[in-house]
């Protein structure tokens, strides 16, 4: 649990913003609380807000939440080696509570110390603390939002929080290429039904990012080869 303390101020701010943004975008207070307690995926909760407000069908919203969560497939693929010893009942619990920060902390410790004892308890302690702080602050945000006038424009805080998440991912060429291809498609095709514009943008963006990533890896390989030949 102590290991997750450095992230706590961030979790508090993020939880408050998510809570406020959910209500200020027009979600009923009781639904905001239900979603917060059950879904536990901050970026997906914020990302799906405009879709919920626009009245998109539930499967489009779920699909959008799924895509924003795809990074966790990669996280859990690296976690599984360390959790394989645990039972099939324990593993989904460990998975459900994984967060971006607890994953990073766990991987640091496990690369340093290997299969340390009680790593499931350590992981759940860190995740549990984050879960608790997150829930308390987002519910405080949800309740506080009812007292804040809508003219303050706080629903935009949710978009800004997502921006803070996206910008670091664009500092690498493939990520930047993906975003640069995906965003204009989504803007131009925003009138299409069933959120088709969003998914066209995402698919084209992923293709662009993978192509750029591939080109970079290949160029690095050639540079290395030439270096070998010279030496």
């Amino acid at each position, binding site marked *: 649990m102590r290991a997750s303390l450095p992230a706590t101020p961030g979790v508090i701010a993020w939880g408050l913003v998510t809570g406020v943004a959910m209500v200020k975008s027009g979600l009923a207070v009781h639904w905001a609380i239900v979603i917060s307690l059950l879904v536990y995926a901050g970026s997906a909760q914020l990302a799906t807000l405009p879709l919920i407000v626009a009245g998109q069908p539930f499967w489009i919203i779920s699909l959008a939440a799924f895509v924003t969560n795809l990074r966790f497939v990669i996280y859990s693929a690296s*976690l599984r080696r360390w959790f394989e010893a645990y039972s099939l009942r324990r593993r989904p619990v460990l998975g459900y509570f994984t967060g971006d920060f607890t994953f990073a902390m766990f991987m640091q410790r496990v690369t340093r110390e290997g299969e340390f004892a009680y790593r499931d308890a350590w992981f759940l302690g860190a995740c549990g603390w984050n879960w608790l702080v997150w829930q308390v602050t987002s519910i405080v945000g949800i309740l506080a939002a009812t007292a804040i006038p809508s003219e303050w424009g706080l629903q935009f805080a949710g978009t800004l929080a997502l921006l803070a998440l996206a910008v670091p991912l664009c500092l690498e060429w*493939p990520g930047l290429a993906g975003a640069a291809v995906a*965003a204009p498609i989504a803007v131009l095709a925003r009138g299409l039904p069933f959120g088709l514009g969003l998914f066209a943008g995402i698919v084209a963006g992923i293709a662009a990012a993978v192509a750029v990533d591939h080109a970079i890896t290949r160029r690095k390989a050639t540079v290395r080869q030439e270096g070998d030949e010279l030496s």
Partner: protein
Amino acid sequence: MNINMLLVTVGMVLATFVTRAAMLLVGQRFKLSPHLEAGLRFAPVCALAVLIVPEVVVQEGAVNVSLTNPRLAAALAATAFLLWKRSMVGCIAVGLFVVTAFRFF
């Protein structure tokens, strides 16, 4: 009872759970190919882009990419602040400040 919101909640719970737990449950048998892994790695940034950018550049139904668009000006200021100070809270604060400033001036 709002059926659509109930379905949204169930769908989002499944999306959270499947992405986080599926790989742990299948164990080591299933390997991700490098291409699939690259695709998964870049999917979130693309998803964030398609959700953020229309919120920022579309103003009352029309695209406005000039600095007269408060949200665009706010997003640019927030991005600059984030790159400069690496502070998420600061980024949100700067963005909200710019949007509010537009309302008053």
